[in-house]
């Protein structure tokens, strides 16, 4: 399908592609735009695109009225916390599976994957009851554990596929050079796998940040992250569109940035290495 492109067909195709792209992006654009409007303008018909009084008051009010930062803080703690706990478990596990495989390594990997296939509703009831009985409901610790466990298979898999790409020779060379196991991991494996580890962490942060089954079901207020905060706008009295948009923009922005950075690695992480 690669025909020689004339400048004209290049430009017209580009224009067409941009129209399609902008249409897909439109809801996000509209959300951001609405966040700068007054509540009145947000619901005005016909909608105003540029000619309105740009205001930042929604952002200020979101914080004042609903303590936005508490929720944002929870989101950060849950995402970062579950990622760091996950990393400790996943790096060791993936290292072992990639470089010291046994006959059962493949089965173990696929079993881990299969736990990810389990619909959360299948275990909602017991997890809820256990959380209730152990006083873990609405605690950050409890949710960090849930998010960590939920994403652990993905982390192990992603790191496994990255580690697999590191030639065993190099680790063996380090061994011949007299490096002990910890030194081998710290001086040779980790520096080489750094890009892979970084993108694994980013993906995990994204997944944890956007997780909206457990965070909605296991929290009420103290540990509630932004997913729950935004969900509270679904009630009728919360129908302040401009404020909703401002809160949403704040909730989405950091992840959008991270996501854009890690889009390539995302494919590998979400397809368990089946598409590269």
């Amino acid at each position: 399908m690669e025909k020689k492109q004339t400048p004209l067909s290049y430009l017209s195709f580009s224009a067409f592609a941009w129209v399609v792209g902008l249409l897909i992006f439109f809801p996000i654009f509209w959300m951001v735009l609405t966040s700068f409007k007054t509540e009145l303008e947000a619901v005005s018909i016909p909608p105003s695109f540029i000619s309105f009084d740009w205001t930042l008051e929604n952002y200020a009010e979101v914080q004042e009225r609903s303590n936005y930062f508490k929720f944002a803080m929870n989101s950060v703690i849950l995402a970062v916390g579950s990622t760091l706990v996950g990393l400790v478990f996943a790096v060791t596990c993936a290292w072992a599976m990639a470089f010291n495989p046994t006959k059962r390594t493949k089965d173990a990997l696929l079993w881990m994957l299969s736990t990810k296939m389990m619909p959360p509703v299948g275990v909602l009831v017991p997890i809820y009851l256990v959380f209730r009985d152990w006083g873990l409901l609405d605690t950050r610790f409890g949710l960090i554990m849930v998010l960590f466990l939920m994403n652990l298979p993905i982390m192990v898999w992603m790191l496994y596929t990255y580690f697999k790409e590191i030639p065993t020779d190099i680790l063996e060379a380090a061994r011949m050079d007299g490096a002990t196991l910890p030194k081998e991991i710290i001086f040779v494996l980790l520096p080489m796998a750094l890009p892979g580890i970084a993108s694994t962490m980013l993906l995990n942060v994204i997944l944890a940040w956007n997780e909206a089954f457990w965070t909605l079901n296991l929290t009420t207020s103290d540990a509630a992250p932004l997913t729950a905060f935004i969900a509270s706008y679904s009630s009728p009295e919360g129908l302040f569109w401009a404020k909703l948009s401002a809160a949403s923009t704040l909730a989405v922005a950091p992840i959008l940035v991270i996501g854009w950075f890690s889009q390539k690695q995302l494919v590998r992480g979400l397809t368990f290495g089946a598409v590269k």
Partner: protein
Amino acid sequence: MGAIRLEKVKKTFGTLDVIPGVDLEINDGEFVVFVGPSGCGKSTLLRLIAGLEDVTDGKIKINGVDVANEAPAKRGLSMVFQSYALYPHMTVFNNIAFGLKMAGESKDVINDKVNNAAKILNLTDYLDRRPGALSGGQRQRVAIGRAIVRNPAAFLFDEPLSNLDAALRVNMRLEITGLHQELKTTMIYVTHDQVEAMTMADKIVVLQAGRVEQVGKPMDLYSKPANKFVAGFIGSPKMNFLGGTQAAKYDCHEIGVRPEHLVVSTEQGEIPATVKIAEHLGAETYLHVNSDEFGPMTVRATGEMPLSGNDKIFLTPEQDRIHRFDANGLALGHPLNA
């Protein structure tokens, strides 16, 4: 100092006997080449000596001490890998210095040794570069440099030249041989290329299916192969094996004649044949011929030879250079010596 002795070394993966039991004596300062077709266990044997694999059974003695259960680093060996296995995130200097750092050497000692190795290997100008910015030959030298600085009891080379192009390979071959003459350290070198084996080795170990087929000096293997496998593996182009009337003439199951030991004539000879393809290299001519009785044969004649496809020729084996084999492929004594 590095004399290495393998005693009944065995390696099994699951139920598979990769090395069914090898005894081998490597003297201090010797250049030993393990050669054999791919999958013959030569690399596994090297990795067993290095300690990268556990032996299933047997002893590996370095200077008389059994190291079979020691960690690789404790064996005082260094290894050059096929892929070079350089640390991509370290400079050339740090690549070479890594082993010394791990051994806790002082900065001055490290500097001295690395610079010294770099001088020997012509790497002085590249010490600040990363491996990614080096050519194949330079990477190879860094890998060798990394091995040299540790002052090992022996060097282990795992097919180190197979990733280089043909011209560079000849160069590096000479460099490694030169290095051996300079350092006089024991070297064990694994390759599937019999030319490398013939040109570099003091002693060649021919392996097949984990078994040692023959151990000896290059020319001994060439002129007195112990069996059909060695006879066919050493020498290029491959030896011709002839049964039928030729074998009967020498009173054995089969005879072997190297392509360079066939006399070509257009008028008369023992084996009539038709030229299929003639490859003219100037200094020599390779003839791929077909004989009615023996099928395809290869002839290597010196100088130019005005032959081409479909020419009829006659071949005669040089009587004192033929090899006799019994039905099991084992070499029989030479008829003239017997």
